[in-house]
């Protein structure tokens, strides 16, 4: 069976399943109505049963009624006049796949791109969403591959089937949640499970077809390189956003988060961790029955059979946008109006403007637990860190959480103690806090972590601190503590 026939058969099966679901639901509702009618006609009607049947029938019918498709913009809408280069690339991908240009192009805050179709059969609007962090990690060639892949979904007619399946799935979910854990609910749950497995199998095949189409334009090697980058970046973006960006946004600033994401991925600690994850032989990823996309190794294997091609444009794809800063501001504004008005901040200023006030506050609150330590004689055993962390959190906090809290307090204490002595705290996305004074440099976290892990002796640290003249500086001065 060819791929096209397979897809056709599966798609037909999905449509039959959609129809069967509505037949099942409506049949059940009619059955319940009929039962209540029979009860009413009988000489001694059971009113409780009648209410049960009527409520059940109403519930099922209410669940299957199609809801109005309420479209919510996933992010700021891009205009051709503002980003002509990006639209030129979109046009190229559209013409390669013989598709019209989408009516709406949105920017999203995700390492992803998507296409969809809005409206009914008469007033169809094609929508494409492009991730700003996605553009931060891809070259123009790789991004072109992604765009062609997305247009491949229009080309293959995938977006025609999608809305039907989506609406049927939503109706099934509503029915299952209405019927809760009753026998009827289990029947629908079983049916929904089968439906989802079949439709997702189609979805995974459609991804292979779209990959193949994209590879014919940009070459299999470029496509494979792009997919690998997307896989890694997509898995850490959430962590990056929450740990690196939100604290700065909370402090009232809009940092250059797109550029910061590229720096984060290249930070030594992060890139070493990601390398270890990707090389872990125990973490071989396989496609699951409930995955919308095939697993990366399967996609790479499929691409390996296609012509390799060669890269032509290796500029970063962000160069297609006229103003990245403006786009970042619009993305933040799409979360809430307040966030769109935040003042810009460059990364070197983040430590002084954002973290130093946080560190001072932390030391004021919890610094008393570090009173007996000095910069040259800091806590340097696991047990000491656990005790400090538990004093901050609570005695029953688990060791890992306690150690994490202890490190945060230690870094804050180093910053508050060393800043008046002319040291400058600096940090880059994904990197640790580094203290510098002229040519002198201290990396308290990594240096003391090696001591805690037993890889280094504390005397090295003590000697360095003595050489810098800071060995006897108390970790926390009384004046820094909150009183009362």
């Amino acid at each position, binding site marked *: 069976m060819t791929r096209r026939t397979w897809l056709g058969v599966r798609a037909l099966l999905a449509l039959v399943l959609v129809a069967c679901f509505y037949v099942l639901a409506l049949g059940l509702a009619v059955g319940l109505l009929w039962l209540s009618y029979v009860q009413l006609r009988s000489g001694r009607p*059971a*009113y*409780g*049963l*009648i*209410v*049960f*049947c*009527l*409520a*059940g029938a109403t*519930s099922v019918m209410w669940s299957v009624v199609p809801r109005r498709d309420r479209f*919510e913009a996933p992010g700021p809408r891009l205009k051709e006049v503002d980003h002509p280069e990006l639209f030129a690339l979109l046009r190229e991908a559209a013409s390669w796949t013989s598709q019209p240009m989408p009516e709406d192009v949105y920017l999203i805050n995700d390492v992803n791109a998507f296409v969809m179709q809005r409206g009914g059969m008469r007033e169809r609007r094609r929508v494409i969403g492009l991730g700003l962090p996605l553009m931060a990690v891809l070259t123009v060639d790789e991004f072109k591959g992604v765009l062609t892949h997305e247009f491949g979904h229009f080309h293959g007619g995938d977006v025609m089937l999608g809305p039907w399946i989506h609406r049927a799935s939503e109706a099934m979910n509503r029915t299952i949640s209405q019927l*809760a854990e*009753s026998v009827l609910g289990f029947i629908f749950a079983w049916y929904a499970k089968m439906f989802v497995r079949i439709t997702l199998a189609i979805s995974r095949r459609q991804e292979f077809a779209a990959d193949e189409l994209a590879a014919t334009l940009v070459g299999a090697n470029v496509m494979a390189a792009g997919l690998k980058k997307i896989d890694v970046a*997509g*898995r*850490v973006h*959430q*962590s990056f*956003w*929450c*740990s690196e960006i*939100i*604290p700065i946004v*909370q402090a009232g600033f809009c940092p250059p988060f797109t550029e910061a994401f590229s720096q984060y991925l290249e930070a030594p*600690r*992060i890139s070493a*961790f*990601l390398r270890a*994850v990707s090389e872990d032989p125990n973490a071989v*990823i396989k496609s699951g029955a*409930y995955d919308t996309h095939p697993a990366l190794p399967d996609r790479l294997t499929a691409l390996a059979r296609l012509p390799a091609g060669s890269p032509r444009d290796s500029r970063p794809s962000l160069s297609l946008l006229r103003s990245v800063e403006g786009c970042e501001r619009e993305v933040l504004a799409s*979360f*809430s*109006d*307040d*966030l769109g008005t935040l003042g810009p901040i460059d990364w070197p200023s983040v430590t002084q403007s954002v*973290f130093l006030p*946080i560190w001072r506050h932390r030391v004021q609150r919890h610094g008393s637990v570090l009173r007996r330590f000095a910069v040259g004689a800091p806590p340097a055993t696991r047990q000491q860190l656990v005790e400090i962390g538990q004093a901050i959190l609570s005695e029953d906090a688990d060791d890992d*959480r306690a150690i*994490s809290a202890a*490190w*945060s307090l*230690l*870094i804050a204490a180093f910053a508050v103690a060393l800043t008046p002595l002319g040291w400058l705290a600096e*940090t880059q996305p*994904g*990197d*640790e*806090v580094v203290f510098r004074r002229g040519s002198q440099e201290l990396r308290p*976290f990594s240096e003391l972590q090696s001591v805690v892990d037993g890889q280094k002796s504390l005397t090295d640290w003590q000697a360095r601190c003595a050489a810098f003249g800071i060995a006897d500086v108390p970790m926390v001065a009384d004046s820094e503590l909150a009183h009362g």
Partner: protein
Amino acid sequence: MASCAACGTTILFGGARDGEARFCNAKCKAQGSLRLAVERVPDTLVSSRVWMIREGRCPECRGAGPVDLHCSYRVWSGLIVVMHSTRPHICCKRCGTRAQWRDAAFSFVLGWWSVWGLIWTPVQLYRNIRDILRSEDLSKNTPQLELLVRAQLADDLRTHRLIWPPSSPR
């Protein structure tokens, strides 16, 4: 001797593993793995995500927040069957109140039609009215929102294979 990380039963032989944790059977493994995944989500990620939800637009009306978790309670019954549920809504206070009024009305009409319904209907009505009248401290999120976000992040970790690289302390 090993004990099940979910229910504490002593495992003599066999069982199921998830990393270093051991479970007595597949059901315990599913429960325990989810619990472990929830516990593994770093606190900073949870608090950041909660902050974004609070500051973001209300998903229901697209108006200004603060957004939080609001629950509405409903019941319907007939003869021998009673169905009661607590329905979570992540939305602003206004939309939450609207959902509570809606479910109170639903329960008032359809709740009473069985013996258990006579007991459950006043309970669900009371819960809805209590939450409608409760004046909330809008400056703080509910602990339930935090729990929900933690569970969602743990689910993302499993389904989208997300990873949390070790973050340097700040």
